[in-house]
């Protein structure tokens, strides 16, 4: 229960970092060897749901390492990343936390999220999904060593995914 509270607080803090656009601090939550991954989600028959999520090695939506994530954040700082300038207004709501401590001290943590995004004058997107993280204890806190993000959509109903999950 203590771990659950600790991690819930971790995720709430992460959500505020994103919504307050403190992306450098958000980047520091990830290990140097992080794998930030969003598979595609196929529309398949019930008896073929093992094919629903594309595996690593197939074309993914996000397949970032720390350098790609850093490039995304540094882009925004140039003031010329036009897809996010003016920036999106986002709200990350994170919950349904399930923690699964591993024998080596790392923790598997699963959360559900709703991400609301408003852009320019009247554009709106709502992204729903879940995240599976591998958390590593580092200097008395936690870092994300692997994040898999699964959207609850097939065709993504947004012009782009210029926000973070």
């Amino acid at each position, binding site marked *: 229960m203590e771990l659950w509270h600790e991690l819930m607080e971790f995720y709430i803090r992460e959500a505020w970092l994103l919504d307050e656009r403190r992306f450098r601090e958000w980047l520091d939550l990830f290990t140097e060897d992080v794998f930030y991954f969003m598979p595609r989600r196929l529309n398949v028959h019930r008896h073929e749901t093992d094919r629903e999520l594309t595996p690593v090695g197939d074309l993914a939506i996000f397949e970032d390492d720390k350098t*790609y994530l850093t490039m995304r954040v540094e882009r925004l700082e140039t003031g010329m990343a036009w*897809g996010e300038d003016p920036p999106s207004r986002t709200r990350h709501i994170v919950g349904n936390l399930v923690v699964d401590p591993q024998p080596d001290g790392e923790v598997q943590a699963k959360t559900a999220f709703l991400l609301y995004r408003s852009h320019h004058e009247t554009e709106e997107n709502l992204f729903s999904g879940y995240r599976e993280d591998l958390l590593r204890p580092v200097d008395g806190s936690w870092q994300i060593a692997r994040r898999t993000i699964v959207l609850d959509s097939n065709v993504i109903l947004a012009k782009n995914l210029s926000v973070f999950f």
Partner: protein
Amino acid sequence: MVAVDRKHQIIDLETGQLDRRIFVDPDIYAEEQEKVFGRAWLMIGHESLVPNTNDFFHTYMGEEPVILCRDGRGNLRAYLNMCRHRGNRIVRTDVGNSRNFACAYHGWTFSNEGALEYVPGDEEAYYGALDRDCLGLVEARVDTYAGIVFATWDHGAPSLDDYLGDARWLLDVSFNRLDNGTEAIGPIKWIEPLNWKTAVDNCSDNYHVPTTHLSTIIVQGRHRGIPRLTHEQQFQSENKHLFVNGHSLTMRFLERADQVRQTHGVTPENLAAFEEYYRATLPEAERRLGSLRTRLNLGNHSLFPNGVLGLRLAHPRGPLETEFWHFVVLEKDMPDELKTALRRGSANYNGVNGIFEQDDMDNWRGVTESGLTRMGRKYTQDLSMGVGHDRRHPDYPGVVAGRYTSESNQRLFYRRWEQFMNADNWEDIPLEPKAMDYEGTATLRG
């Protein structure tokens, strides 16, 4: 040829002025579905998406839902995804493997060779009077270019070979380099709030890159060691931009035979491995493409009407909406490590979240929506850059723009669109005869 009373006169080639209504007018949009998407050869997938007999992959030809499958005999077929009874979709998944398609409404069942095989109550309810032979699936003509599958609804359309024409002369350097060919993975699918034509004309626009994509060019220089183009390199480049049958091809000269062919996914760490790969495959490429073409690289390009940058498709979804599909095409023989780099690079640079592409959509939307207002429509779009400087070149196919950066691409794309929209049938649509020397062994089929 229809010349005197052309209905659609939207682009003036002498002045480069374009009528903005083509992006927003619902009547024009409806006519496009018939005259452009109903006639053209459209990219719909890749052979590698349906490797085994009875595999199917759900795709689109414009707005039309289409089942691409490999039938029991191994032939590629493309059917309108529409039950011939009341019109329900008979396939509701993205992929699968099935010898037949059963409609979930009343149970009519079609084989993957298109025949209506089973009708519940055939004898009793229909009194044996249903003519099943006339109720097979609606089928499109299918052909392939180097593994990429194309289809058309128009049985009067020319062959795919003639449709591509000498565009293939340069497309080959990207898609037809090696004996073992390519494979496609994907697609990533998303909806963009813009007219499909703005996305297509932009993906072969060399002018926007240093402005639209500057933020990514800067961080790419910092982390990937790829230098920013100088003003000279951008505006006085020796590279060429070619136009054949409405297709647009940016042609770049390789400085060295082992130079990497694309930059998305290439890092200082894997650069040597890429160069080694291109060195090792050079003799094979030369045998297939000859010595001139192995020194060329294909840059930004589009295939009329809605294919851009390889196998990426802009499916129309109403005048103000486009469903974009992003596939990645990889050479099968490439080592896994390099395939991984290109796969990640392609999606991370150009997918729905691409650090290049995410800066494009708002521009396309702005261009689209400028046609919505009374005042906006009063003023034409200016596509005058380089008017009067297009040439023929003895060594290269099609029309060659005077410079690497010009708006010849847009002018000729919209002229091609006009030709389709003003034609009564394929007889009225001009095709450039093939004139290039295809040195080497590569053919249309691979």
